[in-house]
């Protein structure tokens, strides 16, 4: 199968629009300089506590690319498949006085389902500028859907449980990614040009990193939060 695809690739590249002449953007998110130097020693495989709660995205990408990412064509060999009308929504559940997941990144315009699978009452509200909402007291089993139409970081609070804090990161586009436990992330391929990588972490805040995508070669970024 792989071989077959590899054989087809040049043909596809010819057929595809110039957008496909793009480069993958990868990198490692570092929470501090110390983490970075420690990582350098161990070949970049050192786990970083909590780094996976970070989110990285590109501030601005060409609309064409965005369209592609928002409405990905099904692979040609699955052409008979129609895109799903109502794909399942991402879910944030309130369990054990926490939000699960604690950080959820969604592209702008997405909806999230807030559920209470717990046996306790909860509540969810936000006072963030990007989205103000208040679900009020939510009894066990309740499901609410909230649409996020503006990009930004939205803090989620439970009125009943002060320690329960969650974050919804509404990215301006679909070019976003969540690092793994070591901080590695991979963003969609981008056509050459100048971009700004935006990294955000609940404990470290925001970080902007401009970079260029060359016509050839790859991009590996190491966004690092200041100490």
């Amino acid at each position, binding site marked *: 199968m792989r071989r077959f695809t590899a054989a087809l690739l040049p043909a596809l590249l010819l057929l595809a629009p110039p957008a496909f002449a793009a480069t993958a953007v990868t990198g490692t998110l570092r929470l501090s300089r110390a983490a970075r130097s420690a990582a350098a020693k161990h070949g970049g495989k050192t786990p970083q506590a909590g780094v996976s709660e970070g989110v990285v995205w590109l501030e601005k990408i060409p609309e064409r690319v965005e369209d592609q990412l928002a409405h990905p064509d099904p692979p040609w060999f699955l052409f008979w498949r129609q895109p799903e009308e109502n794909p399942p929504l991402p879910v944030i559940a309130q369990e054990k006085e926490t939000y699960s997941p604690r950080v959820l990144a969604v592209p702008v315009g997405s909806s999230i389902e807030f559920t209470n699978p717990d046996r306790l009452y909860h509540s969810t509200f936000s006072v963030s*500028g990007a989205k103000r909402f208040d679900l009020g007291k939510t009894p066990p089993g309740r499901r609410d859907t909230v649409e996020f139409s503006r990009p930004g970081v939205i*803090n989620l609070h439970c009125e009943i449980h002060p320690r329960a804090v969650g974050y919804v990161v509404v990215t301006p586009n679909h070019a976003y990614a969540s690092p793994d436990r070591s901080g590695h992330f991979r963003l969609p391929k981008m056509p050459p040009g100048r971009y700004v990588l935006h990294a955000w972490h609940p*404990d470290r805040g925001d970080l902007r990193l401009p970079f260029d995508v060359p016509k050839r070669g790859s991009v590996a970024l190491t966004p690092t939060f200041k100490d």
Partner: protein
Amino acid sequence: MRLGLRWKILLLTLLAPVTLAGATLVLVNRDVAEHTDSSSLHENLSHSAAVFEGMLATRLHALEGGARVVAQDPRFFSLLMLGISQRDTRFDATVRGMAHDFNQITKTDVFEVFDRRGRLLASVGESKSSPDARAALVNRALGGEVATGVLAEGTAHYQAVAVPVHADGRQVGVLLMGAEIGSALADELRTQMRCEVSFLAGRTITGTTLSRAGERQALLEELNAIDLGPATNSVRLGLLRVKSDKEFLTLVRRIPGTSAKSSQFYVLQRAFDPELIFQHTMRNDLVALAAVALILAIATSFIFSEQILLPLQKLVRGAREMEEGNYDHPIGVRRDDEIGYLADQFTRMRAREQAYVKSLERATRLKSEFISIASHELRTPISVLAGYRDLLAEGSLGKLTARQTKVVESMREYLDRLGRVAEDAAMVAEMRDERLSLDRKPAPVAAILQMSVDSAKEAATGRNVEVVTKLETPDGIVNVDSQALVQALTHLITNGIRFTPDGGRVEVRAGLGDGRLAIAVSDTGVGMEPGVVESLRTLGAAERDAAHHRSAVGLEFGSGGLGLGFSLARGIVSAHGGHIEIESRPGKGSTFTMLLPVDGQERAEAA
């Protein structure tokens, strides 16, 4: 001073209640005074100060608790969690609204919210803190600790607490809450502690319960006089007298939690008046009680004494009447108790006394009548006897022999003596019947003395007793019945001769002075026993044993007469308004002194 029975009873019955009332008054007064003295009030003030500082601590604790609760509320810290990029245009208004909502619950005077860099986001309390005043507290809170203290805002103080606001593991801001230390607290404290409370910033009163400007002014003047420097923590002032009617004990203390540099003090003042009013009321009540008790005691003791006294007074009146000879005065005491018995006995005794006195009077009257009649009856036969004797002596009844003549001559002597006795007895009877009348004429004292001595000497023929006269005032003339006085004096002299052994001496001295004539007859005779002197003084005659009576013609030593002599002399002197004094010692002799009042005018004439 002699006290009647009534006053004695009154005094005795009053003594106990009055002493008790007095002692109670003194003791209670002392106790009340001790209770209200300044030291206990000082203690009270210190206690109040402790309570106040306890209140402040409690309040601060409550404030801190409130601040902590607010800081942990997601509705509160969710806004502070927002980074710059998460805020919208309404952010500031939202924070203010949220803070306002929270302060509706906490109701603190200062409610200020700061972001994680210490910038003020909202201040929604009635008061605002100034950056300088709050800087220390806020900075400590930014460092992550809960900071408490007192904000000094020029003319106001606030107990304040700055609490760091944490969310999702990091500090997102600071909440500053403050409660004013001012009039409201002062009023509360005053209600609880009965103290006037004032708060001072420097020397400015920022809140006080003193209602009158005069009191505030007096306090400020007092404070100006003392040192409120950084080293001063507590100053106890003495009595602060506000112009007219109020006195305060004053305690000045630094407000706990304030720095030494800032002069923030509170003043507790304890007015004296409640204690004084209490003391006055107490005293007045006691005095009123004592007065009532006294009146009651007087009334009861009066009734009590009257119960005893009334019948006694009736008895006394009866006794007085009896003394004056009225034996029939009604006693009018009819009781069954001891006094009734006494009254009955008194009445019975009075009846017996009356009967006895009547019998005595009768006996005396009979005796007097007998003497009077006897003397009169004797005089006639004596005259007749004297007439016959004269006839015999003249020889008209025949010539007498020499021996007969001698007998007749002797008869004359005895007849004279008998006549004198009869005369004396008649005179005594006259005096007893108060029938003696004086024939007062001016007469020289010397003549009276001479006549008396001559007469006495004549009677004392054959006795070897020297009679000496001494005139202290030789030319005195007195207005007296000289004949009677001579008679009286003669009796005293003859008595003196009679009781003086031969070789003795009787001295008669007379003197005028102080409106009185004094004639003293002293002898060197046998004297008299005190009992005899006493009976002479009271009865006017010496008690004698009739069985051993020894009569004599002349004045033989130790012989007795009829006993009329002294009685007669006393009667005559009494008729002149005078009396006789007797001094006597057995074996040494006696002195009888006649003392007669004489008219000064007579002496002037004589001079």
